[in-house]
């Protein structure tokens, strides 16, 4: 069994989930509490990866990280090598691709915390950030875990985006799903079956954990 793609995929999924905790929480917080009238536009942008074909998302990310884009150029000037077809470029694409899988459960959980508890904390002199950390976050723990697990699992299984942005470089961007595809192309069904089974079992375990944590599956947007 070839472990390199599995290790690489775990690393990619782990880092993606970690970044999404840092990036997704502020976005989810803003989406939950903002009264901006055009907020629905931001909600749509965050939800886009749910409906967009991975190749479309991958195409735009590829253009965005390419050597001709400001992002690609800026990255090259800063780090010294291009962003496209690297692990970092792949990580960037993964974060975008899994964004709704983190943000939506986060926002749903924040939105179900009784606003009176938050207000009570404010009137007790506790800052907004401390209130978030001491009231909102503990009371949304299940939703946060759901978001982390879902974005991790979603990254584990991504294919189209990886192919578009990362290519197929062993040890750098060759993830499990690409590996399976390659094995099948090479008519190595036994190898593909092994890796596929690992992914299947993993996905089942992850979903079981999520369902056990909160009995109802996440809603598309929190009820308010």
């Amino acid at each position, binding site marked *: 069994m070839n472990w390199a793609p599995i290790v690489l995929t775990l690393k990619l999924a782990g880092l993606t989930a970690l970044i999404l905790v840092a990036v997704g929480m502020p976005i989810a917080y803003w989406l939950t509490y903002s009264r901006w009238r055009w907020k629905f536009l931001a909600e749509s942008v965050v939800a886009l990866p749910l409906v967009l074909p991975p190749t479309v998302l991958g195409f735009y990310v590829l253009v965005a990280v390419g050597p001709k884009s400001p992002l690609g150029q800026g990255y090259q000037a800063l780090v010294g090598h291009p962003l496209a077809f690297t692990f970092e470029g792949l990580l960037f694409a993964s974060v975008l691709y899994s964004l709704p899988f983190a943000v939506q459960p986060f926002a749903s959980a924040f939105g179900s915390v*009784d606003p*009176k*508890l938050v*207000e*009570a*904390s*404010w*009137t*007790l*002199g*506790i*800052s907004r950030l401390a209130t978030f950390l*001491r*009231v909102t976050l*503990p*009371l949304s723990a299940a939703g946060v875990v759901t978001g982390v697990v879902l974005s991790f699992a979603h990254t584990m299984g991504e294919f189209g985006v990886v192919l578009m942005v990362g290519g197929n470089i062993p040890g750098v961007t060759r993830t499990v799903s690409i590996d399976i595809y390659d094995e099948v192309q090479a008519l190595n069904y036994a190898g593909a079956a092994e890796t596929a089974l690992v992914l299947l079992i993993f996905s089942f375990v992850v979903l079981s954990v999520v369902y056990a944590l909160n009995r109802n599956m996440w809603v598309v947007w929190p009820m308010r």
Partner: protein
Amino acid sequence: MADEMTADFEKRYNGGPTIRAALGLPVGRSHVTVLFGPSGAGKTTVLRCLAGLERPERGRVRFASETWVDTDVGVMAPPQARGVGYLFQDYALFPHLTVAGNITYAIHDLDSRERRVRLDEMIRLLRLEGLEDRRPAQLSGGQQQRVALARVLARRPRLLLLDEPLSALDAPTREQLRGELRALLRGQRMPTLCVTHDWVEALTLADQVAVMAGGRILQTGSPDSVFSRPANAEVAAIVGVETVIAGKVVGRQDGLAAFDVAGKQLWAVEASGKGEAFYLCIRAEDVILEIGAQPSSSARNHLAGRVTDVRPAGPVSRVAVDCGFALTALVTRQAAQDLALRPGTPVTATVKASAIHLIPR
């Protein structure tokens, strides 16, 4: 004046009423102002504006020398900076924290020894011994209310805002906690603004009553003046009890208490047998008017006086009688005509001892 809190502001809701409030409270000593009125009058909105949870469109809120709100210069102090204690109607206890965790929530910055001292003080003050490790869900309504009060008082606020503090409780508990709350508020060196729609609660707690309806404060004054001398018919309809007199017990006999009010002796049925100072509340429909000398009947109180005013109100007439103090009676229009009641008519007002509702003050 430096030692006063003044608020004068306007809060508009889209498609809803405009809430206007003008209030003054003394600062730094115990003083309870009750904001009294029917639900939907905008009472809670006033509290939320004072706490900084709502932003008034227009107006000013000043607390001693601080400016909390001044829409003219764009000042809007956040709730964190105001140092108020806000007691929510349903208490808003943190469900993931224990009783002790809730009470010490806002005094996290104190060192652990000081925090412990403050916690013990609050546990004792609100009689929460033995409940420190419980979660809010494991407490009765009355206990939750006391925990919420402890959480608010633990950080020594400068102003207490109570939103219907007793309405979430069942009737016997409410009865019991009303007196406790009054004693507690009397012992605090800070002003309180308390919202209620229950006139017994208003009379029990208030040093000052502000009657509110339809988004406006209609009358402000001492409890007996607002209840006995409503400024207009709207206030009279809201307060619902027409005569409120302050009185002191001068004697007790067979479960009855005797009061000396303006030289007249009034008897009232007394449940507790404790306390000296009370408000005597008499509803106008419980007052019977008769012409001439004092008749003898089962009622204990016969008060000679003169009619000062007769005002028709639908099928009945509202008759004001001066019998040393102002007493209002409700009689049918037919009766008012038969008795030829007009200002100056000498009458005897009869009130059963059991129709006088006593509220300790």
